[in-house]
């Protein structure tokens, strides 16, 4: 690796080194290892998340390895992206950054998902709404360095100074009109002896693509059915495989009682026992499913066999400390809220392909933390890490689910057991019952007021433990989360404090998380703690406003902490015509959320005449992410957050009954369908300023608050249990 250019961003606080990493094809990487971060200016009185949120920490730990972001320039330009695409549009956003810096049409930029590379350490995790935040600077610098080398190569070719040359449409252009396409310059540009000047990213004021609404780079592939998710890949000899799972969470196999009969079924090729169940491998998935259903298995007990919702609720209520008797000298508002478990339920169920041989293994799966997956699978197979290849595939949704790699691990175990490559797919029923879920939580909130001011605001959260044992992408940090006492609980406290803050001047403000460790399958769900915690707080804000005799919008305007927050509030109040008369059973509601250097407001209208089928009929969202790279993708993320909020606030959750969720498909877990969503949605993207903030998780908490507040105003009933309408209105599938 030869150090070729050295750049300074002048008044900016970071320094970047770029590297030529391969020849003769121009392949450039950037190094941020000398980056310095400015000392944070500490506002007063701040919450931790206002000073340094989890995304800032992710950027910091990723800095030493950010130089591994690689761009290859040939006739086309290829970026090897150390993140995964799960629908959030990151491949489009980064293609825009590269196209902008290299003056290429976006169609000339290919983005491929990088295999798991342990040397990337903390820099190959997709989460915390952090991909654009962490990649915005490095990718622009790598692309600018590539452009600098292409200009230098043309300068040598034509014997003209680089300052007289410019780049346009994938070519270097001379003042006399001569053009050299990048493909013709790539070998010369990769010459290690080439002298290049400093290469700076374009000033943002000159951006013509970044910041403009752009359609997904894979839109055509999607609408023609050409996108290849894990199970759409053709891996020679890989046979369909499904797993029969226990009747309760974390049960295990005692004995398989009819192995021979199942092996004799049409198409069935192999039956194997793994720690989580019994694998059935067949010629088609239909036959694997028949075999799985026909298995007779004696099971050992699981880890929560005696637990049902009522037990879990009681544990959570007890874990959140009660407030003392109210002080009679001040006004007090107390409220309790409870949220049920929620399945991530991505439409592509947990799936993976594995080809395990005696001395090596190859895995394909949609993974948000592929390094820890590779390291764990290698350990499970007893292979050196460098004998295990993990390919990251585009995934059919995640919402936090694909931080874990349980499907990939099972596929590897079954491939090892039966000595042939397998395509593993979880059934939908198993995905909902034995997959991961957002943990249930209980909330106690108290606010005190006097003389027109909010004096204090305290929020005590009790939650079933969220599993963060994926660490931040590699086994060193994952190992820390496995340690008792300082392990997962310490990580969750850190995550809670680096994500949760209340965007209002409510005097002495305090948040406390108490986790109840139950051996269930949980994982971060879009917006992690914020959906419930901040959603509940937005209901509380309406209750406080009412107690003080103030309109919900006027109250928020008065108490919000900054002008950005007030601007999004004003934007939705205006575009949503706040306060317009509504018929009986209909109402408006509003919510605000601020996280990851971004903020949003959501105003909804609800028709709650039928309390069992309330419908959000209209939504207006304003969003300020600092600098939106792709406003069209940003709107999509906000739309997704809105639909998640409609679902989880009104009807979608999991009932836990004797150690297993009852819900087993979308006919039972009521994620919203078209008839449950508004016919009128307007999203206002606020003008660009500053650097990109987070976007992927931002939309959910404000919408939860808005919907609950609208329901309350429409019905006169304050919802405290979520989802609001949550009967067991189905016959559960057999265990």
């Amino acid at each position, binding site marked *: 690796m030869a150090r070729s250019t050295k750049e300074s961003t002048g008044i900016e606080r970071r320094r970047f080194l770029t590297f030529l990493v391969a020849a003769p094809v121009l392949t450039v990487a950037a190094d941020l290892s000398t980056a310095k971060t400015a000392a944070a200016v500490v506002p007063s009185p701040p919450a931790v998340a206002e000073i340094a949120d989890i995304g800032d920490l992710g950027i910091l730990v990723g800095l030493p390895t950010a130089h591994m972001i690689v761009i290859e320039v040939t006739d086309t330009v290829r970026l090897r992206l150390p993140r995964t695409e*799960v*629908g*959030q549009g990151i491949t489009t956003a980064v293609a825009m950054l590269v196209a902008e810096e290299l003056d290429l049409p976006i169609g000339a930029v290919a983005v491929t998902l990088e295999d798991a590379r342990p040397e990337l350490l903390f820099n190959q995790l997709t989460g915390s709404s952090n991909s654009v935040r962490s990649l915005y600077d490095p990718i622009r610098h790598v692309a600018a360095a590539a452009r600098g080398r292409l200009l230098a190569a043309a300068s040598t070719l034509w014997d003209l100074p680089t300052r007289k040359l410019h780049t346009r449409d994938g070519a270097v252009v001379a003042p006399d009109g001569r053009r050299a396409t990048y493909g013709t310059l790539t070998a010369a540009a990769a010459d290690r002896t080439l002298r290049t000047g400093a290469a700076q990213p374009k000033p943002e004021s000159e951006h013509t693509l970044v910041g403009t609404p752009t*359609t*997904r780079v*894979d*839109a*055509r*592939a*999607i*609408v*023609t*059915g*050409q*996108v*290849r*998710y894990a*199970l*759409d890949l053709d891996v020679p000899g890989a046979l*369909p495989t499904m797993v029969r799972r226990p009747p309760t969470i974390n049960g295990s196999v005692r004995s398989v009682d009819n192995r021979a009969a199942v092996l004799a079924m*049409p*198409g069935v090729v192999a039956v194997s026992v793994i720690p989580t169940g019994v694998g059935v491998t067949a*010629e*088609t*998935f*239909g*036959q694997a499913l028949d075999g799985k259903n026909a298995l007779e298995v004696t099971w050992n007990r699981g880890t929560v066999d005696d637990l049902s919702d009522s037990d879990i609720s009681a544990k959570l209520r007890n874990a959140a400390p009660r407030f003392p008797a109210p002080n009679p000298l001040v006004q007090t508002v107390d409220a309790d809220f409870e949220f049920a478990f929620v399945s991530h*339920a*991505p*439409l*592509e*169920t947990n799936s993976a392909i594995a080809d395990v041989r005696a001395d090596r293994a190859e895995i394909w799966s949609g993974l948000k933390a592929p390094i820890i997956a590779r390291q764990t699978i290698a350990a499970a197979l007893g292979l050196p890490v460098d004998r295990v290849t993990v390919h990251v595939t585009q*995934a*059919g*949704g*995640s*919402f936090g689910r694909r931080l874990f790699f349980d499907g990939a691990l099972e596929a590897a175990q079954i491939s090892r057991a039966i000595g042939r490559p397998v395509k593993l*797919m979880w*059934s*939908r029923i198993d995905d909902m019952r034995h997959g991961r879920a957002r943990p249930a939580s209980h909330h106690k909130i108290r606010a005190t007021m006097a003389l027109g001011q909010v004096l204090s605001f305290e929020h005590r959260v009790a939650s079933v433990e969220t599993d963060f044992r994926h660490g931040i992408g590699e086994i060193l940090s994952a190992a820390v989360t496995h340690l008792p006492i300082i392990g997962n609980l310490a990580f969750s406290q850190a995550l809670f404090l680096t994500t949760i803050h209340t965007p209002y001047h409510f005097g002495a403000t305090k948040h406390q998380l108490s986790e109840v460790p139950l051996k269930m399958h949980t994982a971060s769900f879009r917006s992690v703690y914020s959906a419930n915690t901040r959603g509940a707080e937005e209901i509380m804000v309406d209750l406080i406003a009412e107690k003080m005799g103030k309109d919900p919008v006027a109250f928020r305007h008065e108490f919000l902490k900054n002008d950005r927050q007030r601007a999004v509030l004003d934007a939705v109040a205006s575009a949503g015509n706040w306060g317009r008369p509504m018929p009986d059973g209909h109402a408006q509601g509003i919510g605000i959320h601020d996280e990851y250097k971004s903020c949003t407001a959501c105003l909804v209208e609800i028709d709650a005449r039928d309390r069992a089928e309330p419908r959000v009929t209209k939504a207006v969202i304003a969003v300020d992410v600092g600098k939106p790279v792709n406003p069209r993708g940003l709107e*999509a993320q906000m*739309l*997704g*957050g*809105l*639909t*998640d909020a409609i*679902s989880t606030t009104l009807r979608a959750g999991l009932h836990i009954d004797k150690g297993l969720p009852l819900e087993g*498909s*979308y*006919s039972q877990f009521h*994620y*919203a*369908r*078209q*008839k449950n*969503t*508004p*016919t009128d*949605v307007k999203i206002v993207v606020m003008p660009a300023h500053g650097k990109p903030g987070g976007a992927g998780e931002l939309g959910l908490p404000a919408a939860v608050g808005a919907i609950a507040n609208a329901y309350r105003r429409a019905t006169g009933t304050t919802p405290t249990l979520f989802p609001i309408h949550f009967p067991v209105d189905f016959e559960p599938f057999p265990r």
Partner: protein
Amino acid sequence: MPKYTFTVNGESVTVDAPADLSLLWVLRDKLGIRGPKYGCGIDVCKACTSHLDGEAVNPCVVPVADAAGRTVTTIEGLADGDTLHPVQQAWIDHDVAQCGYCQPGQIMAAVALLKSNPNPTDADIDAIENVCRCGTYARIRQAIKSAAATM
């Protein structure tokens, strides 16, 4: 094992399969046609929506024997060569997809709707039950309306 002959995306195919094997797995595992997706296997998520003799069906609950002698169209067979169906084009114009996994089924459902109902109302569009876990419904609604306007 019995043989079944039917037409898929304009081509005649013959497969050896048990009569009750669902068309979804015949398409995906025996014919390598991967556009139709598994999402539930019991006709509630609708991700595999395809057409049988021009009508929307969910191949996860259609036994292969029922397809014999008939015409199956999957998302791969919707475009006319490089010319997209107007619904596919509307999906791109409105940047509908996020993860994309349900979208082949959404598009096939929308095409079937527009065939029987060229000017669907909001209530007609509400009747489409296909689940989109990314929550793209508002863009799906817009895309169906603009496809209806161009067809």
